[in-house]
């Protein structure tokens, strides 16, 4: 019994140390990326800009089609259900406040974040893991090219920009699609509903939205890259590490969405 207790305490200690090491490692990794990207003489180098644009195309543009479909379907479903409920309770005046809060604060960052994780995180992980496996970083080192600036920084910036654009696009489509439906239900025009939405928008919603977008964009790039760089150079390890990366990412994602709701 006592031995089981000791083993239990040991496993908790081991788990705590690994979490502390992970957070320390990822913090230093992030600082190093931003320091290399923002404060080097090669900042806004045409090559870096080209790589950022390519990454936006690679991880962001390809998601537009999926986001469009999801935004229209989910936007209609969320707003349709919520507005019906509110109309049944006779709370039609609160529709703007409730729906804006739901869309901006929860639905847009959460749904776009999930889509973004599925598409971008796995792509970034495989990209970096294969680069490590193929000895690409050795080539960069030989040419005195900083990998933090040329490889990691463009991906982080592209991820944050893509996340911001996709979430804003999601909100726009959801508002247009779902509030068209709402204007029929309430027998009013789209512009009136639009005004109701804009007037219902609070500064805390916007801050929460920006907080979630920024950090989701950041972790979607940072965690897969960090985990890929941690792995040993072997194809088997790519699969094992990818699993690890997605789990870490999922926990961090939930944490960020949770903190976002507290704002």
């Amino acid at each position: 019994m006592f031995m089981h207790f000791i083993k239990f305490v040991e496993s908790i200690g081991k788990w705590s140390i690994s979490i502390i090491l992970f957070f320390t490692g990822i913090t230093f990794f992030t600082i190093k990326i931003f320091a290399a990207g923002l404060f080097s003489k090669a900042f806004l180098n045409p090559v870096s800009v080209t790589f950022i644009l390519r990454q936006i195309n690679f991880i962001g543009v390809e998601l537009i089609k999926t986001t469009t479909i999801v935004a229209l379907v989910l936007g209609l479903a969320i707003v349709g259900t919520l507005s019906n409920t509110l109309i049944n309770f006779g709370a039609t005046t609160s529709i703007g406040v409730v729906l804006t809060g739901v869309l901006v604060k929860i639905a847009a960052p959460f749904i776009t974040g999930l889509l973004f994780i599925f598409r971008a995180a796995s792509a970034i992980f495989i990209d970096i893991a294969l680069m490590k496996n193929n000895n690409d970083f050795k080539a960069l080192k030989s040419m005195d090219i900083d990998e933090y600036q040329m490889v990691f920084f463009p991906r982080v910036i592209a991820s944050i920009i893509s996340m911001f654009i996709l979430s804003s696009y999601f909100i726009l489509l959801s508002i247009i699609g779902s509030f068209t439906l709402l204007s029929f239900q309430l027998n009013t025009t789209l512009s009136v509903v639009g005004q109701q939405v804009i007037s219902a928008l609070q500064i805390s919603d916007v801050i929460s939205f920006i907080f979630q977008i920024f950090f989701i964009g950041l972790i979607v790039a940072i965690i897969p890259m960090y985990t890929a760089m941690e792995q040993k150079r072997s194809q088997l390890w790519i699969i094992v590490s990818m699993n690890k990366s997605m789990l870490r990412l999922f926990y961090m994602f939930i944490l960020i969405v949770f903190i976002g709701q507290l704002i």
Partner: protein
Amino acid sequence: MIKNNAITTFVKNQNDTKNIITDLIDQYSWGKIAVVSEDVPLMSALTVLDNIVLYQCYTKRLNISKVENEVIEFLNRYNEPNIIYLHKGQLNKYQQFIAKLARAIIHKPDVIVIDMPVDYLGIDNFNLFIDVLKESNTDIGNIMIIENARFSNLYDDLDINKVGIDEWLIHVTKILS
């Protein structure tokens, strides 16, 4: 500017040829010595064009499209212009060598080190390689070729300086046409 003598002395002072490439890379910057070797692979995530111009664009803040024509012209000399937008995985050994050679030559370093060209090229493509090196001679400084002694006769008609270490031959040269 690294002088021919400096490289010759460096090579002569090496006890072991195994680490000569990595030692050279550690000692000199890529701007001064560019290496064509298995030790400095092409980046698999980038196209041949990106690989070739990466260093030049990174250090001189050039736009990639501005040096594209220069790269096409170089690849044309080796009858390989079609590889420009391919990735490393799509290239054969010879094409990878040409891409690495272009990457080394294009930014005009003081010295180009070529590690075992016969291994990449085979005897058939070797003469073409030497001809293009002669053509490029005015653009580049010194060329150092590390090659196994059994292939030394391939270099006989070139005006070169041979420095032998064990069974390896190190040619330090400015090739004259």
